[in-house]
């Protein structure tokens, strides 16, 4: 990591490799102020021990009961929690705002892992619509398929689906990375504003429709481009980043990233480019 004390405020994010776009013209940039650091800790979070492990069977629990019990276990310092029998229940694992190693032995329904900030999650099954919506930081790995609106409005973190995903993946995303091992449906990257989406397989119609910014990488066929989505040159630094990201995600081993297509926004908008909280936290 760069020595943050020796770089100017304006280039800190670039030095950390977190913000590579160079914005010009009337686009405004406001960067993180270290004096605001104390504002980025949440009330009611826990300092957990990853080596302290437990299991929780949620077969006969409602989603609120299961989530309260997860919160209770974190309050006791459990840092690794294995959830048994999720059985496609909705809204499991939502609102976790601290580091946690969370493993689901099965599938989740809608809105799983929504509004989280920090946990490392592995789901040994499928997820329904709107998985990890509003993810701020952390990592969520889905071993099977995912429904529509996967990673809607995420602002940071890594969201990885080893199977295929439905429509509107990464809709309105404002940061972070979404990686898809299989195919993706229509309107992928719809209105995305920042961040990156990697799809190793095919993608449906209207890719990147109305995207403001951000980057989409596609390994397979593209059904059609949406309004404002255009091709861009895949640079060597893009390829390095893709290789590194896929390796960390444990997905697409031996995938030839040099043949991927890079899609970006063909227009520029003003006044939306303030640094997102995840990057502010990372700069602390």
């Amino acid at each position, binding site marked *: 990591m760069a020595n943050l004390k020796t770089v100017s405020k304006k280039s800190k994010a670039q030095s950390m490799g977190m913000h590579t776009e160079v914005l010009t013209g009337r686009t405004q940039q406001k960067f993180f102020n270290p004096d605001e650091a104390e504002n980025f800790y949440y009330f009611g979070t826990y300092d957990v021990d990853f080596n302290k492990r437990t299991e929780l069977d949620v077969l006969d629990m409602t989603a609120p009961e299961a989530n309260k019990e997860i919160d209770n276990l974190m309050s006791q310092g459990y840092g690794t929690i294995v959830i048994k029998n999720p*059985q*496609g*229940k*909705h809204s499991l694992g939502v609102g976790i705002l601290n580091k946690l190693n969370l493993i689901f*032995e*099965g*599938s989740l*329904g*809608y809105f799983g892992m929504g509004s989280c900030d920090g946990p490392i999650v592995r789901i*040994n*099954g*499928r997820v*329904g*619509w709107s998985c990890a919506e509003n993810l701020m930081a952390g990592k969520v790995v889905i071993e*099977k*398929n*995912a*429904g*529509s609106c996967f990673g809607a409005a995420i602002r940071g973190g890594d969201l990885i689906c080893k*199977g*295929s*995903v*439905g*429509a*509107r993946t990464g809709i309105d995303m404002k940061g972070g990375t979404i990686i898809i091992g299989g*195919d993706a*449906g*229509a*309107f992928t990257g719809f209105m995305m504003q920042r961040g990156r989406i990697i799809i190793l397989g095919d993608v*449906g*119609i209207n890719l990147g429709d109305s995207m403001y910014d951000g980057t989409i990488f596609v390994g397979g066929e593209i059904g059609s481009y949406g309004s404002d989505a255009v091709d861009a040159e895949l640079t060597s630094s893009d390829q390095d980043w893709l290789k590194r990201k896929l390796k960390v995600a444990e997905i697409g081993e031996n995938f030839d990233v040099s043949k991927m297509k890079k899609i970006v926004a063909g227009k520029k908008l003003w006044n939306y480019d303030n640094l997102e909280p995840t990057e502010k936290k990372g700069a602390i």
Partner: protein
Amino acid sequence: MCGIAGLIHRGKSSNVGSELQGMLQALKHRGEDSTGYALYGDTDGKNFIMRFKVGENVGEGSSSVMEDVSVYDERKKVVDQTLADIGAKIIKEERTLPYSLRYELEYDAKDLLNFSQTVEAIPGVEILSMGKSLEVIKDLGNAKAVCDRYSLDKLVGTHAIGHARMATESGVDIKSAHPFWGYPFSDVSVVHNGQLTNYWNNRRVLENKGMRFMSECDSELIAVYIAQKMREGATLEEGMKDSLLGLDGVFTYFVATKDSLGMAKDTMAAKPLVLYESDDLVAMGSEEIAIRSVLPQEIDTYDPFDGEVKVWQI
């Protein structure tokens, strides 16, 4: 919102009444104004089964006008006489509720259009389904309430589709409840989750071609649309694929026939569907928890993509 569910056993029969009840009950949070079942039971295939109603459920929450029960009796008498007049012999008769009846009919006709028009010309009478395997049962309340009311949990068959309804653009009544019979085709039924925005345009066109609408529920259009395509010679799958262009709006729907089950999803993929497929069973629903009610073990499921049409045979 509404929820839909369906399953088809391939190569065997099962207790589809109980299975579908479990799936729809798991979706009751998506709507419990009414629940409907289209069950394809094991029959000898000789006689028609006609499910029909001579009135509405006017219980709590209903938007229907209350009628004296004696009116139902009068309508039933007229139905019986009409059936005799057109040569349909009643083999077996069940009156589950004052307004809901099930007849087994000996009737020799391939085109049910004339039959249906004649029966439904009786004021207050609506055929819910007509077929040699299909039985459509729909009423107000959640899946368990309807299942218990009509004793559906024992019904054995090969496949079934169903619907849990949250009434939005039309009334809380049986005529607006799903499934819809693919009038006038024997053994065709439809359930739908979504909203059709060119309902009236299509309805006017289809009515001019002699098709009938019993409700103002936009979902009924799908049944009539597919039926009209089949009248024009299309296969079920061709009709469904055509509907992706002809129907405007957001939708996921199921169509079932005597020996098949199909699904279609609009090109926006705006309505959910989760699908499980194996060699001997296909189960699908608006949410995975519906499938979990029949397959609690860990399984591989997926969301069909936009504009996808699939059809399975028994």
